[in-house]
């Protein structure tokens, strides 16, 4: 019993929670639990306070953001009316800014923390390192990314037909 207590004091439960959380992210589907450790190693954590801007429309994107806790509001400026409208809210377990993993181009929306939010950031350079050092993990993420982007593109293309 005492030995278990000692083990508990050495082991960080928070890591287990983070690993479980990452396993539920669509982008990392197909990556084994043990391999998820390498994904966690490649992620950068940061907490944003309510109202802080994560990036603005037109900034060059370099990372994908996964919401761990809190909420992010994505808004887009309409060039005609110069008015900014919230286009989506991102909740824990969801991610945004995935286009930055493919090319360093201007962001198409502004992201603001709607409440105190903890995010994981996956930088393009880290994904490149994963592809190089751990191809199995890198390829799984790249293939998931391609599927997600394809689905989003399809949704956009099919939208006018619905109207």
């Amino acid at each position: 019993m005492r030995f278990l207590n000692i083990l508990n004091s050495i082991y960080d439960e928070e890591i287990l929670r983070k690993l479980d959380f990452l396993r539920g992210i669509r982008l990392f589907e197909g990556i084994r639990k043990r391999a998820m450790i390498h994904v966690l190693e490649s992620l950068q954590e940061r907490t944003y306070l309510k109202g802080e801007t994560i990036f603005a429309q037109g900034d060059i994107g370099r990372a994908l953001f996964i919401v761990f806790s809190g909420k992010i509001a994505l808004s887009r400026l309409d060039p005609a009316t110069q008015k900014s409208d919230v286009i989506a809210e991102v909740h824990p377990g969801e991610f945004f800014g995935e286009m930055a993993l493919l090319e360093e181009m201007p962001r198409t929306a502004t992201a603001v923390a709607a409440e105190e939010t903890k995010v994981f950031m996956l930088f393009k350079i880290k994904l490149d390192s994963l592809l190089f050092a751990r191809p199995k993990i890198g390829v799984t993420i790249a293939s998931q990314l391609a599927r997600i982007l394809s689905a989003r593109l399809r949704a956009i293309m099919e939208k006018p037909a619905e109207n």
Partner: protein
Amino acid sequence: MAADSTTLKKGYAQLVLPAVMAAALIYFIVLAKGAIFPFILSAALAYILSPMIRYFEVRGIKRTYSVAGLYISVGALLFIGVYLLFHFLSYDLETLQRAWPAYAGRIETYFTNLNAKVTASFPFLAGLKLNDKLQHLLDLAPQFLLGLLPALSLLFIVPFITFFMLIGGAGIIDYLLDHLPSRHSELILHIASRIDGSLGNYLRGILTEAFIIFLIAFTGLVLMDLNYAAVIAILIGVSSLVPYLGAIVGAVLSSVVAYLQFGTLLPIIKILAFFTGIRFFDDWFLQPYIMKKAVKLNPAIILLALMAGGEIGGIWGVVFSIPVTCILKEILLIAIELQETEFRWKPKPEPTRISIPFT
């Protein structure tokens, strides 16, 4: 307009406190240069060791226990290694100090004869008094080697400071990360991870390479029964930090020692063949494997950095010249990339003809 100037003034005012703090920090560093030096070395060591701590951390071991575990296991091994090394080193140095007058005499006789022959053929060289200069150098050599011993005390101080830096380091870094300007944190973290990637890989790579070369050289020289194997192997390991220099230093030093010890040509040939082998092993196996992810530095740039580092900061300038060059190179590359991405110097080519309809 008035609102604009107020915003501008507020913007400048925000910079006053950080600027004063930075200036005070620089002034403090200049004043306490000697005392700060072990801390700079410890910070460098903590940076090199941090991936190992991170390795255990992401596997669920708390940071304090990871650091303690690493120190107990690796530290014990290193302690034994350093102890053995000191044993060999102090024995070698003592022997060298005792044997030095005889060696110096042989070297002096050799050069006196050579000098006599040269001055007989070229009388104007007599004015240079090469014999006196050589005598002075030979007198200084043992004192120089013994003078290096106090610097070895850093071997005990630096790991001690590093321990506390590793334990407390994560908290400071997390605090700084959370207090970066939010909108620019993505760019700052991108730059930091780029520098970290190339510098970390270079430092860890070159240190691993130097250590492996040291081990091979030490084993080879002990097997060849050469005197002062530990001293020579350490010098080879340290000089391996400069490309090509390790093998050259090893070959020259070992050949001189072999000549003085054996007085025949065969051991010298064996030693030269051994160091040629080390050079090829380094080029063909070590470097392609260890340095594959590191920033590439041209040997000419490395030499320039070392000379400039020596000019600016003496021996420690030389030690830190390569890491600083790595950082400068990466910053230069990032600056060029930022010009291309943020300021659109160059239009990006399309990966395919995007007018082809989505199918």
